[in-house]
């Protein structure tokens, strides 16, 4: 069922002559909210994300003396640094295809800007990652597709603003995108329970984010030949033990406070933020019926175009409009 599909603008066929049967009525949509996830898009998202997982966790899978083991060659591991942005681009293009209408784009831009602005003072230093404050509720209210794109864009924008475009950026983008995505997949609770759920999710997300990025940075930071660096082919358990030691000694100290911050903030400010987002998604009229009717006593030239969407379809999902 289409969140924005029937808001008129997005699903409008570009050629005027066709009366607006929504252009993709045949495809059942697996998403809702500001950006619709069609079946193909979500499939691609899944596949690409799987590859993304590999790009994050290759140290855990690498076999002995394979191309990536750092003792042998310098730049094989960096191939993943090239791969991830490509994946992101593909996903973006797929999600955007005919789905990112003016409303969604404007909302994306503005929210990404707010996220980046929140991030500017702290520079996203470990222990304080305000991006989630906005990302989680946004993904929750505006749907998983929107959450995914927003997560990626927010970090990209803040990197551009601070000139911090480094090899880590694509991975940060991917991580944040996943957080936004899963925020959109949370069960539909309401009231107090919802806030608590978001807070818990936020904490978990913050921890997972730190873990994932550390996993990527691990081989570069720890190199080889030390008891906390990755061991190609030594098996998952062995490597996990090493990684855990690395994570523990390097960054858990930052990740825990970050998780706590996020949870607290969401507990405190979660309700108003959700309210604001729901209000705007109402005012932007995501998924509201647009209908033209000929005036009763009008003899106008052109045949009156009926464009009424049957109500049940245009009834927006709670995520889209509360």
């Amino acid at each position: 069922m289409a969140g924005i599909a029937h808001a008129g603008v997005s699903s409008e066929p570009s050629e005027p002559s066709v009366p607006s049967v929504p252009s993709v009525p045949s495809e059942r949509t697996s998403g809702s909210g500001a950006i619709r996830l069609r079946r193909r898009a979500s499939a691609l998202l899944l596949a690409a994300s799987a590859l993304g997982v590999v790009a994050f966790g290759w140290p855990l899978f690498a076999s002995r003396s394979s191309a990536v083991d750092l003792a042998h060659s310098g730049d094989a591991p960096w191939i993943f640094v090239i791969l991830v942005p490509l994946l992101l681009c593909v996903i973006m293009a797929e999600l955007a295809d005919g789905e990112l209408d003016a409303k969604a784009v404007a909302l994306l831009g503005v929210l990404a800007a707010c996220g980046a602005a929140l991030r500017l003072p702290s520079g996203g230093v470990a222990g304080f990652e305000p991006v989630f404050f906005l990302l989680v509720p946004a993904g929750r209210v505006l749907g998983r597709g929107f959450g995914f794109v927003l997560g990626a864009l927010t970090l990209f924008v803040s990197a551009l603003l601070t000139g911090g475009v480094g090899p880590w950026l694509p991975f940060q983008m991917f991580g944040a995108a996943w957080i936004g995505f899963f925020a959109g997949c949370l069960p539909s609770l309401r009231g107090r329970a919802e806030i608590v759920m978001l807070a818990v999710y936020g904490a978990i997300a913050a921890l997972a984010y730190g873990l994932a990025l550390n996993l990527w940075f691990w081989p570069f930071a720890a190199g080889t030949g030390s008891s906390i660096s990755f061991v190609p082919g030594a098996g998952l358990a062995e490597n996990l033990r090493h990684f855990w030691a690395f994570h523990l000694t390097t960054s858990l100290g930052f990740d825990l406070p970050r998780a706590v911050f996020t949870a607290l903030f969401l507990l405190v400010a979660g309700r108003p933020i959700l309210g604001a987002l729901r209000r705007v998604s109402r005012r932007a009229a995501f998924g509201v019926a647009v209908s033209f009717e000929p005036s009763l006593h009008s003899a106008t030239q052109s045949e009156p175009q009926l464009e009424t969407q049957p109500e049940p379809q245009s009834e927006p999902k709670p995520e889209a409009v509360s």
Partner: protein
Amino acid sequence: MSSPAARRLLHPGAWWVWAIALAATALRTTDPLLLGLIAVVVAFVVSARRTDAPWARSFGSFLRLGIIVIVIRVVFQMLFGVRVEGTTLFTIPSVTLPSWAAGVSLGGPVTAEALVDAACQGLRLAVVLLCFGAASSLCSPYRMLRALPSALYEAGVAITVALTFAPQAIIASRQVRDARRLRGRADRGVRAWAGSAMPVLEGALDRSVALAASMDARGYGRRGATPRHRRRLISGLMLLGLCLVAVGAYGLLDASAPAVLRLPSFIAGAIALTASLVISGRGVERTRYRPDPWRSPEWIVSLSGLAALAGIVMAAHNGAVLEPSVYPLTMPQLVPLASAGILAALLPAWFAPRPPTLVEPELGDRFEVAA
């Protein structure tokens, strides 16, 4: 020799080619001399050709980051490094972490060889980061967005909007913090910060609706959904690309996999994905206003970067020692070919056009304009 062209911004693509090529060069050696050369070359070019825009001031922080990386590597080596027999400098009392912390044992004798090795590895990573820092401080993000493929137009617009709006959001949050005082609340501290978030968000959201209306009225988003046949082609390409890339990844990770599965399939996959992007960008009647030109300075810059890469590759092929052994410690020598290539990457400092001096008001004026 000064820049022949008038003041203008170089095509961001050129800078990125230059920087990536230098990074790839750095990845091919642990010779501190070569790495040092790359670092200073990059720093020099940045100091010569960066603008005064906010993002252009970031190179310093990349330098700091580089130092941190080296320190981390050395410290890890001292604490966790496997003990290799060598000339011991000093010994750290060894501890063993509890089992829940993976029972790692810390400390032990620290050898000069191990330290030098770690430091060289760290230096290599630091220099790679420096190259990225150079690119991101030399390119205007707006220009980069203009170079985006047409398939990512929507995302590009969203980013442009964000880049434009972020400073205003900061100003707005400042005003809101002032307004808290007008309501008789404390105007600093975390609570003030959190409190100022809400009105800013509200204002931003309202603005987004107005913006969307204006974009709609100005013909944004006439692309619509892609027709089915092209849609199929694109999806096919994407699928193919993803599979190839997956195979490539497998080839990288599994030593027993045939070499064909490694780089070739990776490259093929990347090409397929890129092609899918290009195609899905097609058939959208949309044009670019005054796209950045690619003239001789762009060629010079990108080629000078590639020269460095070529130099070191050839040097390696001629059997020069690019990773001097640290056990026993040996004198790293100047590899003439590689060094020459790296020095060639200095050319942009003179041949890239000077950036225009942009009218960027102090935040104060912005405030006045905004207020």
